[in-house]
């Protein structure tokens, strides 16, 4: 749908909702304006976003303002997007966050894993997430939540 060397937008229909898949690096060159022409509720999937800088954050916030009054959902937000959501509340704006990834790392074998967390598990900024889980790579170590759960889910307060 939209391409530059570093950033790509694709769309897919899931039921009645249009899902906008964002991939690559959101920076000063990222352009979102063609999305404005699309109708109906918009679901932004951030799973493929690999980097974002301050210019990208500003671009996104300005873009989101142009979508005021529209139904917006965020899903599969990786930790780097969650960090922006916590630092810059207008990055979320009026969007509803459906799911985010939480990072875990094994203290034994250093295996990393992203676990998808549904909004029902972080409503109000409180989370009932497990702080440790068994490592599915070495099977003996414990994987720790990579960060502080309260700080990580602060965007949902």
């Amino acid at each position, binding site marked *: 749908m939209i391409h530059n060397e570093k950033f790509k937008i694709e769309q897919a229909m899931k039921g009645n909702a249009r899902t906008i898949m964002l991939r690559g690096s959101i920076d*000063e*060159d990222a352009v979102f304006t063609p999305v404005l022409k699309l109708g109906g509720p918009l679901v932004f999937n951030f799973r493929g976003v690999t*980097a*974002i*800088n*301050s*210019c*990208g*954050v*500003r671009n996104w*916030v*300005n873009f989101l*303002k142009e979508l005021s009054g529209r139904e917006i959902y965020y899903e599969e937000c990786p*930790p*780097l997007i969650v*960090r922006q959501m916590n*630092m*810059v*509340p*207008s990055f979320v704006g009026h969007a509803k966050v459906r799911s985010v990834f939480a*990072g875990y*790392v094994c203290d034994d074998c*250093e295996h*990393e894993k992203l676990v998808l967390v549904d909004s029902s598990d972080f409503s109000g900024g409180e989370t009932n997430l497990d702080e440790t889980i068994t490592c599915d790579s070495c099977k003996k170590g414990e994987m720790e939540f*990579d*960060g*502080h759960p309260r*700080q990580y889910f602060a965007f949902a307060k």
Partner: protein
Amino acid sequence: MRAAKPHYKEKERESSEVIAGHFPKRDAAQYIYSGAHHVHSCSQGATDPFVVATQKALMNGDVPTYSWELPGAMELEVATSAERFDRIKEVTNNPLIKKYRDLREKVEGILEELLTNAIYHSYFNIRGERKYKRRDSVKLDAQETVKIRFIPAPDGIFLEVSDGGGAIRFDHVRNCFHRCYGSEQPQIEAKESGAGLGLYMIFESATHLKIVCDPYKRTTISCWIADKGNFDPDTFSFNYFERRKP
């Protein structure tokens, strides 16, 4: 030194004043907006070693080297805007940084902001305009330097980026912080570049931030990024020093 009691409309602070207390970064930004060049938040308050080191250095007209500025840092040079991505990877591929996603992504984010600031906002042409535009692919002139110094430790990482422009002034910093912390939502929309937001993002992610500006010659921005086990959002320091001609 004053006891910490934040207030938006307080009088202009002296640049030599050291604010010490235990408060959130939003309050620190208010002090900085009021003119404070040195703001330390920690449970020890005035007896904190970084506070004492700052006061001592200010009395002597020096710039202190804090204990988090670890010796033996590795050095990398950046000559083009595209090269910064490789340099960032070189830093984050270090085993002590690579191990934790949280720290790795913080380092990536901070370095990106520091390097783009050094490349695009430090150098000016003879008309006083920015020499390099943000979306341009830039090859720095031979005399224009951008350097990274870094050294990881078990509890975090020391990062430093310097440029040969010496362009970052305190008024710029205070205004950036005011825009980003002065209301419920950071006021970032109307800005032409992301530099103000970048500084805010660095301050939010780092535990210690020190800016040393030698006007028209050099700016060095140093920071300590604590790992997740040692990160406390209310323990931090901000210091801005401007070297003056003797």
